[in-house]
């Protein structure tokens, strides 16, 4: 199978869906780039190059650069979705949600319910999240817990290039509004990605490691850290199941509860701030449903209750570590025998 970067996998997914379905249009700031400028057309292809090459292939009618007006263009995408198109809008950084959240959570997410089931809003919002780029507090947040809280939205967090393509195609074909989260540190990651079109269904977790001693449930970029920790622990004779839920809404409760019950020891890893996040969400879920099977407390490993600092040394401290996952598993395994 050919090897592709996370970035290229996304690009390919977009391109193939645009080829297949002319209702798919994309919009965002500089997603082609060079609009109205004297130099190169398609000068940027997106701030991180994800949409490069799409404008030359599909034209400015389907690849729409926007002014810096997130409310207007995200709302426009929602309005285009309920009137028959299938827009993929790019919210450059999820940190910018604060200038356009209304159009996402009060409009797009609620149309169907408010209108008694008569609206269909096949909207995808691609957005970049996470720490690690020395981009400081307003360009490094996770914020997916906020979207997961909102009924009517689906929330997707791919952890590798294979998932990126398959989940993005699924998101485009899905008839509900989807928030699609891309971790900025993952774009250059490479993996085997089929050239063919394929989809990964929502609400089906991927079990990336199987083991008996503990379960680690991790999201987005954190899945890779969890895998690494599992491999290290495996070498030391502790076997760990790692679950990548892939979508936080819908959530594959069955797989989570099943693996939690099997091992009786759970660590949840979430890069987001600790309050009302996915670590608490998963932990509370297990705690309510697997009480009798649990051998030890559920550990949460998360970013701290602080904005993301700029200074590299502080930011490195900020991000959850493989070693912390290992240590948490070891601590749990030491308990409840």
């Amino acid at each position: 199978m050919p090897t592709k970067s996370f970035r290229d996998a996304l690009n390919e997914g977009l391109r193939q869906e645009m080829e297949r379905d002319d209702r798919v249009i994309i919009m965002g700031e500089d997603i082609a780039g060079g609009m109205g400028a004297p130099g190169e057309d398609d000068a940027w292809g997106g701030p991180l190059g994800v949409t490069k090459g799409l404008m030359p292939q599909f034209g400015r009618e389907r690849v729409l650069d926007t002014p810096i007006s997130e409310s207007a263009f995200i709302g426009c995408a929602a309005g285009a979705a309920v009137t028959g198109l299938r827009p993929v809008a790019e919210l450059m950084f999820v940190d910018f949600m604060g200038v356009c959240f209304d159009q996402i959570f009060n409009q797009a997410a609620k149309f169907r319910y408010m209108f008694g089931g008569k609206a269909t809003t096949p909207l995808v919002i691609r957005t970049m999240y996470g720490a690690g780029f020395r981009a400081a507090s307003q360009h490094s947040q996770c914020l997916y817990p906020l979207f997961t809280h909102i009924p009517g939205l689906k929330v997707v967090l791919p952890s590798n290039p294979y998932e990126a393509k398959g989940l993005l195609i699924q998101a485009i074909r899905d008839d509900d509004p989807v928030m699609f989260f891309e971790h900025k540190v993952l774009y250059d990651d490479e993996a085997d990605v089929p050239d063919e079109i394929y989809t990964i269904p929502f609400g089906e977790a991927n079990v990336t490691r199987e083991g008996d001693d503990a379960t680690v449930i991790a999201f987005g970029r954190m899945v890779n850290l969890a895998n690494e920790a599992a491999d290290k622990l495996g070498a030391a004779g502790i076997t760990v199941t790692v679950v990548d839920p892939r979508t936080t809404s819908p959530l594959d409760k069955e797989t989570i509860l099943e693996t939690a019950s099997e091992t009786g020891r759970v660590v949840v890893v979430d890069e987001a701030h600790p309050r009302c996040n996915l670590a608490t969400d998963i932990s509370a879920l297990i705690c309510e449903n697997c009480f009798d099977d649990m051998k030890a407390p559920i550990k949460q490993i998360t970013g701290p209750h602080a904005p993301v600092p700029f200074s590299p040394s502080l930011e490195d401290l900020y991000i959850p570590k493989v070693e912390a996952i290992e240590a948490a598993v070891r601590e749990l395994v030491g308990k409840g025998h």
Partner: protein
Amino acid sequence: MQLSRDELRTAYKRMCLIRHFEDAVHEEFSAGNIPGFVHLYAGEESSAVGVCAHLDDRDAIASTHRGHGHCIAKGCDPKGMMLEIFGKKDGLCGGKGGSMHIADLSKGMMGANGIVGGGPPLICGAALTAKYRKTGGVAIAFVGDGASNQGTTFESYNLAKVWDLPVIFVVEDNRYAESTASAWSVGGSQVGRANGFGMPGEEVDGHDFFAVWESARQAVERAREGGGPSLLHVKLYRYYGHFEGDASTYKAPGEVEQVKTQFDALDMFKQRVTETSLLGPDELEDIEREAREIITDCVASAASADAPANSDLLTDVYVDYKF
């Protein structure tokens, strides 16, 4: 351009339907039969009807929290609307939306909106679809004077201009946003702002159906022909409080009565069409009676209709969701 007799009859019927609809909702609310926040459009009829007279099935409108008039003008079924406002199962939105979220996408009515300034971005989307699909459709955002100060509205002006979308922004300036006067809250002027964004803008007497109709005709024609967005500043007045229950103490004493006697949209319409012998007084009376009967029937149906089933609480959150 001249309105045909049929067009005049339809317009008057819609204005009467709106007036009676709103008067009936006012009564039913006062009697405790309607729950929630209800904002009435009585007094503003010629704006919705004068604008929507130019629209057909290709076209879309985005409304405001004060949406009943826009719905009726765009052709929504008044009975479905009344049931919705009563929170009944067979309401236009299954009772889940209520007055502030009434919608009928099949008629191009993209929803009342509980968020002031929520509609303008959405209507850009309808306009984009029409442009992309080359349907010739246009899209109208109704915007209150208060909503005309919301950032989402300005962004939409600019997006519509820059993308050259077939949008008309109809700023319905009824003098107040809640209790706050537009004379105070709006820096500059509506037309000046439109021009500042590179759009044509025009001020219109919103009590005068014919004035609205003519300005809207030009704006819609321009948009249909690819001439891009424009703005109408429609000056009008609301008869009731901001919402049902508002004592309207911010209005001057006698203010409502003065407008009602001098600038009532329905009276002005009647006078104009009878003076010019376009329609006869009996004809008008028949239309009005018919409208009144329709609304009376709507209320009766709504009052006796069934509430939603309890199981409806958890449906329609998603098209497809693995719970």
